[in-house]
């Protein structure tokens, strides 16, 4: 019976230790994605702990699992997170299903005004229903999809000459998607410093939201609309418009002609890898990573340049970024609110930007010297000026997964045509909205 006894002792012992670990008080847990800005937030939050005596715990999940894990956590009524820096698209579900605490009363009491934050970010990260003054989050991290390019390669005379010879114009930062793809095509397979390089790393990830975020960057530049009339869910003719079909075809062409081999399931991290290892001339990625790139040992400094998503027929950028919310299931809402109050202060917001977070506070992002403070700040403001977001409906996860499947089937798995993919997408979305009683 030694086995049984040992097991029993082990079980009792471990249970004791596990319980002991929860005994500490005055600490709260903040949940976010695992990426550069999260490390900056850890650094920033040390000041909060010093001021308030509340210890901060962090639960960071990689982006590819972030939505999955955290929405599961919210839907199971979990108490793991007291504060949640959730994606902009979750705000609908957070509000409607009661995952997030409504903050209006708290903002009024503490004198926090949403007028102090950039209007685009308040609308995207905090409000539900959209455009109404019902706040479920404080804008925490502004973000949009942008591009990084190898400034050093672009500046080489022999490369410039070769480009001019081939395309009859100067090699410079692409002004529209046609130029963007031309530039990528130019670099594809070219030998630089004895190494074969490729055009660009774009998003193609299947599992979470990757390829949708990439494809929408093209769609928005082609003037994509989700509905003919806002709020009516009439998608036929908008989602599958000729311009949308053209944009989706362009993205597929981009994937096929100008990406590194095997770049078929890539999101943020894979693009960073490809770029930092010198495999590609350009990469598509969130502005959130740009501070890290600017101080990277290999591609930092003057090696890299940044530009907002180029236009095709209109200006348009895919929105990223998050607001910070208090989780309704938390037992420590008091402390969590205290953190938000602290975080909303202009001084803290200024330090947040300095450490590598994108503050949405007007005192920071609206300051006259902001655009020139870093090589990417100006482009960031430009991108934020024309951002569009995916559906923020409570059923957003369902809508997103449908798009992931349809788009990946077409772009990467080469199934059907762009028109068919978008037609099927409308069918999927219609079912979702019907089930949700919206149409």
């Amino acid at each position, binding site marked *: 019976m030694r086995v049984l006894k040992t097991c029993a002792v082990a079980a009792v012992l471990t249970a004791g230790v596990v319980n002991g670990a929860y005994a500490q008080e005055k600490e709260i847990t903040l949940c976010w994605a695992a990426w*550069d800005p999260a490390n900056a937030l850890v650094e920033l939050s040390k000041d909060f702990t010093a001021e308030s005596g509340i210890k901060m715990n962090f639960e960071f999940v990689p982006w590819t699992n972030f939505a999955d894990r955290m929405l599961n956590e919210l839907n199971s009524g979990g108490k793991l997170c007291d504060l949640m820096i959730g994606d902009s698209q979750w705000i609908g579900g957070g509000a409607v299903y009661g995952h997030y605490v409504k903050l209006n009363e708290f903002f009024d009491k503490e004198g926090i005004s949403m007028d102090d934050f950039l209007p685009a970010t308040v609308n995207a990260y905090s409000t539900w229903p959209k455009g109404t003054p019902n706040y479920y989050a404080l804008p925490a991290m502004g973000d949009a999809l942008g591009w990084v390019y190898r400034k050093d390669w672009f500046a080489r005379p022999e490369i410039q000459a070769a480009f001019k010879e081939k395309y009859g114009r100067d090699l410079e930062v692409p002004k529209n998607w046609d130029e963007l793809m031309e530039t990528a095509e130019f670099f594809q397979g070219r030998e630089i410093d004895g190494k074969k390089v490729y055009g660009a790393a774009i998003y193609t990830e299947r599992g979470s939201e990757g390829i949708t975020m990439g494809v929408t960057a093209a769609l928005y530049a082609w003037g994509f609309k989700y509905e003919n009339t806002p709020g009516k869910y009439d998608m036929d003719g908008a989602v599958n418009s000729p311009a949308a079909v053209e944009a989706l075809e362009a993205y597929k062409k981009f994937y096929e002609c100008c990406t590194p081999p095997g770049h078929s399931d890539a999101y943020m991290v894979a693009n960073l890898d490809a770029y930092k290892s010198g495999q590609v001339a350009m990469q598509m990625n969130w502005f959130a990573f740009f501070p*890290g790139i600017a101080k990277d040992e290999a591609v930092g400094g003057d090696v890299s340049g940044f530009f907002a998503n180029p236009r095709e027929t209109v200006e348009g950028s895919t929105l990223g970024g998050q607001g910070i919310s208090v989780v309704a299931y938390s037992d420590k809402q008091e402390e969590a609110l205290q953190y938000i109050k602290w975080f909303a202060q202009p001084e803290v917001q200024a330090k947040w930007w300095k450490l590598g977070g994108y503050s949405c506070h007007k005192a920071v992002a609206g300051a006259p010297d902001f655009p020139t403070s870093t090589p990417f700040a100006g482009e960031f403001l430009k991108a934020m000026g024309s951002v569009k977001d995916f559906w923020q409906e409570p059923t957003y996860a369902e809508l997103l997964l449908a798009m992931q499947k349809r788009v990946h089937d077409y772009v990467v798995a080469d199934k059907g045509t762009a028109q068919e993919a978008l037609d099927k997408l409308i069918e999927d979305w219609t079912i979702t909205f019907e089930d949700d009683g919206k149409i």
Partner: protein
Amino acid sequence: MSVSTKAYSVSESGKRTKWLAGGMVVVYALVSMIPLVWIVLTGFKSPPDSIAYPPKVVFEPTMEGYVNLFTSRSRQTPEYIESLGPPQTWYDALVRERNMVITGPSRFLGRYWNSIVIGFGSTFLAVFLGTLAAYAFSRFRIPLKDDLLFFILSTRMMPPIAVAIPIFLMYRELGLSDTALGIILLYTAVNLSLSVWLLKGFVDEIPREYEEAAVIDGYSRLQAFVKVVLPQMRAGIAATAIFCLIFAWNEYAFALLLTSGQAQTAPPFIPIIIGEGGLDWPAVAAGTTLFLLPVVIFTVLLRDQLLRGITFGAVRK
């Protein structure tokens, strides 16, 4: 032709055939070990070496993967690192070479510990309950016995995701989501079918005469069970326990869906060990190595019991 009786038998083939068969088996074994050996080696590579082309077989070993596995780090400017003074430990020094500083321990140990707690907890329960049930099924008249036994086995036909849907709802109501207790109960239930079937086979093999003799000697039924039957079952219980433990150790789907932070085990965690700006393959390989090691050891120790366990006792030696 030789007249030795043994020469007729297939299992005693000629020397050359034997040599050939042995050679082929060894080749298969070696080829099938390549992935594992490669992972163990990768754990000792530096991140650039781990993504070198062509793959590096000879490399300078480093502990970076293991350091990265157990710490979280943040990237800093060289000036800032300079200002910290000389590194205190060898792992500090290692990390600083990449312009990083250690900000604290990683979550790997916690997840590993959860795996141990949940593994042993559920194994203990499954074997304990399984032993009792197996004894009863083997020795007593129980109405609908065959149906019950089949029902116990059929619970393993459900895809785990299908089971997870109602369990998710149930645990949400009961507050068992993301708790070690919830996962232990679930794994116990899943393992019980294996444990009852296996242990029943072991009890069946113990002659009833032993207990009857004990009862004649004045033991009660219960005493006979504890003092006579249980000691005889020792080997069977040990084998069953190790099978339950390996299942709980390796399980992924339930852990992924029903735990998030507090009770998460290692399998859903290992795939998401990331480095800053890239999947940190040496750290993933290091975590994988540490996670698989106990199982490899068990496999070697347990090889004689394997057959019975993996076939639900349907095949005995």
